[in-house]
């Protein structure tokens, strides 16, 4: 009761705001103002740009309403990029979730030396995807690349890694998976470590097979972590641009031009700022719809809103 009255006296209203209100304002204010200026404002600016025909050379773009968006929907290259993005996201997430969960289970055997290997597998995530692209371009070089050489030694024909449309997209997904499967692995592994041992042991004592324990006990408990990792990977694969920049630059033809790279081409090479802004707004719309669906599907909520 004493403490309660002290607390009540503390929250005396000062000019319409109580002590706590002032504290919130001062603690949170700078962060919100900053993001408003350098994250929200650019987004609004981008929306405005998408309604103009601004080209780099001109000082002012003309207001053309929704024409960019109309053009986009009729642009076969836009649909090509959308298709590539869809393939990239679906394939990357599928491969990385399956392999990542498998790796988490594998590392749960706690073999000697596995801590060191875990440390190694974290490294790819720290480096620029552009450099990852160059790294693998040299490994896969058709004339002298190490992977090409190994494949030839094994007696196979040298595949057309980065020159045929179908294999290039596949290679892109594989390299993205080389870099980011460990992300899924680390998150799922952390969750496995936190699982109560008793549950799994109880199931084993009841005579359940290893597969049954995994399917009906472990997997459901891991679902929130898997969902979390999958959502992060889906978004990052969708906005991924640097890897394509370093690996294929969109080639062969337009085979690996995703939406992010399509926006980049329009904004940088063609300096078609209005059109590029419209592409990135389409991306934001897709992202928002995708996130809503995914979050609802997995029943995920932001952490602090629990």
């Amino acid at each position, binding site marked *: 009761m004493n403490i309660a009255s002290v607390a009540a006296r503390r929250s005396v209203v000062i000019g319409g705001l109580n002590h*706590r209100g002032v504290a919130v304002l001062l603690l*949170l204010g700078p962060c919100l103002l900053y*993001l408003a200026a350098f994250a929200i404002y650019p987004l609004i600016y981008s929306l405005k740009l998408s309604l103009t025909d601004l080209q780099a050379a001109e000082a002012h773009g003309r207001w053309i309403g929704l024409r960019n968006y109309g053009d986009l929907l009729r642009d076969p290259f836009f649909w090509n990029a959308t298709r590539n993005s869809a393939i990239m996201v679906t394939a990357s997430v599928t491969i990385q979730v399956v392999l990542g969960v498998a790796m988490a289970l594998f590392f749960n055997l706690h073999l000697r030396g596995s801590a060191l290997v875990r440390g190694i597998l974290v490294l790819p995530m720290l*480096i620029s995807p*552009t450099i990852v692209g*160059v790294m693998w371009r040299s490994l896969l070089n058709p004339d002298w690349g190490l992977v090409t050489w190994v494949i030839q030694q094994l007696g196979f024909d040298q595949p057309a890694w980065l020159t045929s449309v179908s294999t290039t997209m596949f290679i892109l997904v594989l390299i993205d998976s080389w870099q980011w499967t460990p992300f899924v692995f680390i998150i799922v592994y952390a969750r496995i470590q936190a699982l109560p041992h008793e549950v799994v042991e109880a199931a084993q004592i009841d005579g359940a097979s290893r597969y049954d324990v995994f399917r009906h006990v472990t997997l459901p408990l891991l679902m929130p972590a898997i969902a979390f990792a999958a959502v992060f990977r889906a978004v990052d694969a969708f906005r991924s641009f640097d890897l394509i920049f370093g690996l294929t630059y969109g080639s062969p033809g337009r085979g690996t031009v995703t939406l992010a790279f399509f926006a980049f081409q329009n904004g940088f090479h063609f300096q078609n700022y209005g059109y590029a802004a419209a592409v990135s707004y389409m991306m934001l719309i897709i*992202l928002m719809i995708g996130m809503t669906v995914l979050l609802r599907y997995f029943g995920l909520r932001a952490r602090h*809103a629990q």
Partner: protein
Amino acid sequence: MIGGHLMRRRAERAVAYIVLAALAIVGLAPFVYLAILSTMSHIEILTQVPPQLEFRWATIVANYHEVLISRGLLRFVANSALVVGVSTLIALAIGTPAAYAFSRLPFRGKDNIGNTILSMRFMPPIAVAIPIFLMMKEIHLRDTYMGLILPYCAFSLPLIVWIMIGFFDEVPREIDDAAQVDGCTYFGLLWRVMLPIVRPGMVTSALFGAIFVWNEFLVALYVIDSGRMQTISLGAATLISAEHPIDWTISATVGVVTVIPMLLFSLLVQRYIVRGLTAGAVK
């Protein structure tokens, strides 16, 4: 029968270790290969398949001299260090108090504001690169360090808030209560009691902010105009994409120079990496 069981277990273990070794090789080999290529001359790369591993000091020195001095990557590394350092410090200074407010204080619209900040973690840089470029042009910050630091802070802020909320949430409430009974204000509490406790969180979030900024080059591509202001990722990306046919010696050396600072940095703060990656994923 027992012998057969033991044999099978042994075989399983052997297979498991082979898988473990394969994972290590797949993870590490690309780095090693890149490092080896950076020690070879252009002709050697084309003719020695696989690389002969006859390291010649003169070639190594020539490659790295060309990249670090002649092509100016040393300067780009310094530019990046400055931009990464300043932007991370600013983001940490703004983001930590905000995360504290989200973790501890009740206020109206908390969930909505929080979700908005966290969703910025998902924003495609391509969506804001052009407007940021035009903004920086208008306020005459094109081709300056400030022109990069300002937008980069906005990129790392959501990351830092996201990670820091988790660390604040882990501090028991009793500590707040005790400090407040002792007459601490919110700021005194944050500064004197909380910050020492959440220091690992600050290292973790700074690490992830720094990695993002170090690797970013799309915004830099627009904002930076002159050769001498380039950041390392921008310098690396332009060197790699501009030359046709690509000079593999140079590319590999550029790759090594870009990657090494991040790898060294992460070795120093190794134990924080997993904490940062799993932030928000495990309750």
